[in-house]
């Protein structure tokens, strides 16, 4: 019996890395969204020097598009088998 330990370890390592990366990207996106909300409220309440939070929104969009492309790749894996 031949057990491919390297393939097993590779699968395990890859799974761990992808999971952590996707969740981290998602969490960063959520953090950015929450920053933008805070910035907009600051503008509304007239705090001087408050940014519009557009940069944060762009960051969130980037993070979520990373997640979306991973999910899309996942779907192609399911469909392509």
């Amino acid at each position, binding site marked *: 019996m031949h057990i491919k330990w390297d*393939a097993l370890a590779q*699968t*395990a390592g890859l799974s*761990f890395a992808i999971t952590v990366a996707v*969740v*981290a990207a998602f*969490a960063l996106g959520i*953090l950015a969204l929450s920053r933008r909300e805070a910035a907009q409220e600051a503008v509304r309440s007239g705090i001087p020097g408050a940014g519009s939070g557009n940069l944060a929104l762009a960051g969130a969009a980037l993070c979520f598009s990373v997640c979306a492309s991973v*999910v899309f790749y996942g779907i192609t894996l*399911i469909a392509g088998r």
Partner: protein
Amino acid sequence: MEHITFLVAVVIITALAFDFTNGFHDTANAMATSIATGALKPKVAVTIAAVLNFAGAFLSVKVATTISGGIVNEKAGLQPSIIFAALVGAILWNLLTWLKGLPSSSSHALYGGLIGATVVGVGLNGVNFDVVVTKILIPAVASPLVAGLAAWGATRLAYLITRGGREETTEKGFRRGQMFTSSLISLAHGTNDAQKTMGIITLTLVSVGALKPGALPPTWVIVSAGAAIALGTYMGGWRIIRSMGNGLTEIRPRQGLATETAAATVILTSTHMGYGLSTTQVCSGGIMGAGLGGPKRELRWSLVRRMVYTWGLTLPAAAAVAGLAAFVADQGAWGVALVGATLVAGSGAMWIASRRQPVHAGNVNDVQEVEVPVQTAAPTPATTTVAA
């Protein structure tokens, strides 16, 4: 269609029944954590899962033309009676674990059933035991650990990254994300598990000459297998959903997303690498990791222990039942009828037993454990010893 004998008809019906139990046994895998965090309402969750399971059945272009992935030697004489016995073992084990609210692997139940029935019906040489070790046993041990570790790491990181953000926005955002991750698991599940049933029906039809060897499943097989798993999914194995969503640990949205992402990733990478693993074990492992990685670091170890015992028992238990069923079914038409009657009676009895403590969409998020083990007797001897 004159090839379709009584036995073949029975096998097809039983295969669809197994597909149905597979569906409602495994709804929890994709949806338990989303239901527990409130990302999806229970009824909405099972509806989405059902639709995606049905869709998943049609998704794959390369249809499984093998039942077992080489676990049993299919050319050594996989008679319809053996397949029937395997399905009986798998269905009864699925229903028993559902009654207990324990998530166990439907795939392992099916594999166990096939192994047991083949050993009795064909002999030990009908089973490729090295494939059993490399394709089932090692992934069975490794995959929940990997999913658990990944979910643990992802949960820790998610809490770390979002600690400066607003709690309300964060929880809402993670709930939104959960809709996508749990949908992905449902889709992958439909593709994997509905195909097993299609494979069984197709091979049965091939074995009696109704289809050419190597033929793709006819459309009615694809549609009925997809419909059976979708219907089962929609019925929702509420008992298991409660155990997984609320029994192991309290799941918050960040943990839910981490669990589901870990589960989806492990399922997709390992399937891509050719490991046949159990969605159930991966998802449970993920929940355990997320529980330990969460702010409370809590896990109900008593339930974890029961789940792990059940995982260990699934293969041999389904094999034993299927082996017995194969022996009886081999005696002729009356044997098949007897096994069929036992299956119906056993399933009915377990359904009636479940009515005593029903779990449904309305009470699925209660924390009360299904089938609380009787522990009132245990403390008494201890106190008397102390008193004496």
